[in-house]
């Protein structure tokens, strides 16, 4: 193991020597890193990796960063890296993988996810966008929503209904669709913060080659599970130090303003406590995962994170006092997702409302905990055994 790590370290140094970051074109450098198997070291050889354990990835990334190598701007392609890549790894053919994975990893091609619809939110399996077979293609029609990055994406993961006459989970099929295809209309969706972080995507007779299908026809729900599982992982994230994360602004604002607002001490302390409890629980969960015995805490941590982020951003306004009424920017614009935006507390009060909706609502998290962790029975289901088309909508 230690030999293997040393060997890997040598490989990285050799690569850096052969491709000095300062003298190498960014895209060429990244493509070469992918080809050398130093992109995702746990991926197969030929697909950006070396079939190693993913625990060694941080050391590789650190070595590249230390050498001043360009990174693949992961924040610009979160869905591609976090969700599309593992889904392709599991479900795509080798040929598909070789086409899609390299530019995905280098960031040359950004990915998005066409899953949610106005009528299929928490109940994702209810998607109504349809695909009809026509020769070697499928013809897709429908409307998707909450699509972040649709406006910068080359490819999308698409979940559609190919058979409305069977129960809802059975009639779905999963495709990769070229966002440059005719018939795709991406419209910015302005949200309550003023920004347009998400999009609505209208699909009007969009042709998708059958060769871009992942999994069998009717197997779309299973493929979707792979994608969603990785979404949850991505949301987990790392454990910061004390007073970072959702309470950071609150605590620093408090230390500035506390002399004027002593009545808020107990409220602030309560959230300090909640933040530290969540941080320790996240650390415990991460330690268990590192040891190879991951627990079922993810849904609970997401739930607690949303509550904490919302409560903290709300109290920050109370602590801030008169200036809290000052907003910064209501103009409709695309947020820069690569760095956390430097915005006023009022912005965060509004933005954190989404923490309990995006990536699985808090209500869905509670269902998951109750059923999968605590083993409580599912509620009576009225839509399980009937054809999708017969479900009341």
């Amino acid at each position, binding site marked *: 193991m230690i030999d293997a790590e040393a060997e890997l370290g040598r490989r990285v140094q050799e690569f850096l020597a052969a491709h000095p970051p300062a003298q190498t074109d960014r895209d060429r450098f990244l493509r070469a890193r992918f080809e050398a198997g130093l992109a995702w070291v746990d991926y197969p050889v030929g697909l950006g990796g070396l079939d190693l354990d993913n625990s060694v990835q941080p050391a590789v990334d650190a070595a590249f960063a230390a050498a001043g190598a360009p990174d693949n701007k992961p924040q610009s392609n979160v869905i591609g890296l976090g969700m599309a890549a593992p889904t392709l790894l599991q479900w795509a053919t080798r040929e598909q993988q070789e086409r899609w994975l390299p530019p995905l990893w280098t960031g040359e091609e950004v990915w998005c996810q066409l899953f949610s619809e106005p009528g299929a939110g928490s109940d994702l399996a209810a998607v109504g966008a349809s695909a009809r077979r026509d020769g070697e293609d499928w013809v897709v029609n429908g409307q998707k929503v909450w699509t972040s990055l649709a406006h910068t994406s080359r490819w999308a993961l698409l979940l559609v209904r190919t058979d409305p006459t069977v129960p809802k989970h059975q009639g779905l099929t999963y495709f990769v669709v070229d966002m440059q295809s005719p018939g795709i209309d991406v419209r910015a*969706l302005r949200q309550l913060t003023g920004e347009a972080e998400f999009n609505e995507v209208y699909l009007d007779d969009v042709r998708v080659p059958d060769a871009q299908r992942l999994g069998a026809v009717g197997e779309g729900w299973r493929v979707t599970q792979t994608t969603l599982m990785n979404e949850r992982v991505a949301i987990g994230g790392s454990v910061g130090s004390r007073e970072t994360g959702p309470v950071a602004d609150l605590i620093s604002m408090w230390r500035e303003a506390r002399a004027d607002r002593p009545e808020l001490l107990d409220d602030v302390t309560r959230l300090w406590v909640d933040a530290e409890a969540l941080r320790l629980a996240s650390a415990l969960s991460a330690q268990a995962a590192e040891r190879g015995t991951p627990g079922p805490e993810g849904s609970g941590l997401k739930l607690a994170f949303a509550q904490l982020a919302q409560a903290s951003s709300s109290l920050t306004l109370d602590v801030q006092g008169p200036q809290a*009424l000052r907003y910064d920017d209501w103009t409709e614009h695309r947020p820069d997702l690569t760095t956390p935006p430097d915005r006023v507390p009022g912005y965060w*009060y*509004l933005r954190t409302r989404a923490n309990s909706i995006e990536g699985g609502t808090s209500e869905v998290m509670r269902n998951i905990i109750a059923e999968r962790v605590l083993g409580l029975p599912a509620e009576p289901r009225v839509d399980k055994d009937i054809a999708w088309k017969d479900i009341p909508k």
Partner: protein
Amino acid sequence: MTELPSLLPHEVDTDLRDAVAKLLEDRSPIDAVLHRCDAPEPFGDGARALWAGLTDDLGVAGLPLAETEGGAEATWRETAVVVEALGRAVADIPFFISAVMATSLAQAAGATGLLRDLATGHEIGAVVTPFAAPFEPRAEVGLHGSRVAGRVSAVAGALESTQLLVPHPDALLLVRTTDATITPLPSLDMTRRVADVELATVEAVVLAEGREAQQAVQRAAHVSAAMLASEQLGLAEYSLESTVQYLQQRRQFGRVVGSFQALKHRLADLWTLLIQARAVARYAAACAGAEEGTAAAHDLPVAASLAQSYCGPVAVKIAEECVQLHGGIGFTWEHPAHLYLKRAKVDALALGSAAWHRRELAKQVDL
């Protein structure tokens, strides 16, 4: 049972409420309010038409004033009915600022001339105090004889106003808005925008001095806090009703979403808070409107801080749950849920936070 004032609407209240609601429906549908949030200036034509309807047609700006003050000889109880209706519609007009804050202050200072102007709605008053702070005399303002100088931040209604009432520790002053520099700010609640007010050694009319000025500010602070609760009640009522309606229609998992028990129980809890907030707001309004010397009038400081301790957080909670229970759609700009959320949160900060009012209350009732 201790004798409490009636907390039920009188017949005339119902008529008043219906008249205001009708006017709002005609002149200020929610989409129009939403649209006006993007306008560079507040109080555009649509909002002005609503204002005119309220002040000219219905004549409700001077409800609690005596006839000699240009008023309708009603009480703050009736004003509360108007405030609640405007809260339901999250109306972007300076009614609360001018007809409650400024008017209660002018009334307490006995500024009859000003009151007559405010009662017509042709003059619009604003109080130069940060909206998100306890309503108190401001030390940021310097007084040099009858000239005032200073800068007060994030004042609500200054942009719409024609007259500025300036509470100073030693005097209550009146300045024409045109004599001040008003810098608009992008505002968390764009239906009630705030601005910085700069007074560059401006000549002012002294409305009251010394202890009299202080008492006037205190009385206005109590009346305003009490009346704000009715706005919060209106916000909460509308938010809850619209959420219930949405959940009665929205389907997921083949079921009406409102049939899911976890959501039903949350809505039941919110409704339970709402019926209590209603009683608290009605009591505060009754105390504000009670005749001097009565137990209710005497209880106004308690009722006002109680109202802001209770109704502010309830309105915020309901508005937050409204966004949450609408799912993604409640997070969009085009859905009005966010207007209620922003107003509710700003109102909870306004005129002293709930935590600040709890401290006041504790002093009042010897806790």
